[in-house]
């Protein structure tokens, strides 16, 4: 029955010699590698020239984008997005509601105030012509009341 090592490799009649040879080779290789200046070798490589020789366009042209996209389950990705939470985080509803409300309110208020000022100016002008006290008193500060909807 053949003798075996722990690695399970059979040791034949020349097994001992082979092991010695392998050990010698390993030591030689390790020594060579130790002595090699890897950084120096890499520094000698002209990476730019190497990249120039690579035809990126040709590589990209070989990629089947359609097939790649078909493998992507967009529906599953979109389904994982909680749009309601996203909208709530951004506060878009509040922004839209506030901006439209303010715009409409401001436009109407602008028309009302301008026509009212027109009334006052014309009224005071006519009252001055007729030499009588002005019909419109001095403006009082605008009152604002809050109502909770």
């Amino acid at each position: 029955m053949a003798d075996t090592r722990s690695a399970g490799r059979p040791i034949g009649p020349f097994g001992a010699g082979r092991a010695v040879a392998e050990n010698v080779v390993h030591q030689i290789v390790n020594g060579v590698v130790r002595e090699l200046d890897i950084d120096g070798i890499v520094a000698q490589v002209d990476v730019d020239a190497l990249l120039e020789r690579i035809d990126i366009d040709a590589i990209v042209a070989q990629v089947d984008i359609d097939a790649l996209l078909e493998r992507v389950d967009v529906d599953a990705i979109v389904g994982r997005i909680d749009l309601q939470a996203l909208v709530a985080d951004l506060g878009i509803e509040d922004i839209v509601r506030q901006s439209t409300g303010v715009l409409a309110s401001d436009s109407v208020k602008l028309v009302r105030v301008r026509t009212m000022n027109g009334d006052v100016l014309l009224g005071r002008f006519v009252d001055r012509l007729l030499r009588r006290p002005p019909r419109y008193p001095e403006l009082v500060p605008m009152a604002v009341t809050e109502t909770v909807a």
Partner: protein
Amino acid sequence: MSAVALQEISPRHGQPAGIVSRGAAALVDFGVVWLISAAISLSVDLVQSVLGTDASNDLGALGAVLAGAALLFTYLSLCWIVGGRTLGQLLLGLRVRRVGGSRIGFFQAVARGWMATYLLALLLWSVVSRRSAAVWDVVLRTEVVYDWTKAEPHPK
């Protein structure tokens, strides 16, 4: 989050409105009545085309003016009866009421609508009136005031 709405009150709340505001409101009301008359005319044309009747029964210029005036009279009267303000007055923040602040009555609204339609030039009296009253306001004891609120005036 509770929505807090700011309800502004006109800085001249309750004071009589002048001819600029009232004229602007009248222009809006003319536009509304024009839209209503256009819708009615379109509907009549549509019905006539469906029924296949002859559409040669045009009112003519005078008839169109009379029909428009009748429509304006109806519109003004109904608006003042229902809410005390027309759509134009709602936009401009005006309200028609009796002198003293109570709500305008039915006959006042109708008489006011008739005079404001067929005697529109009498609005010019508001330029010189001490309380910016048109002739129909003097006759009917009504007034047009600044009122930006949505609340009803005092019950009649």
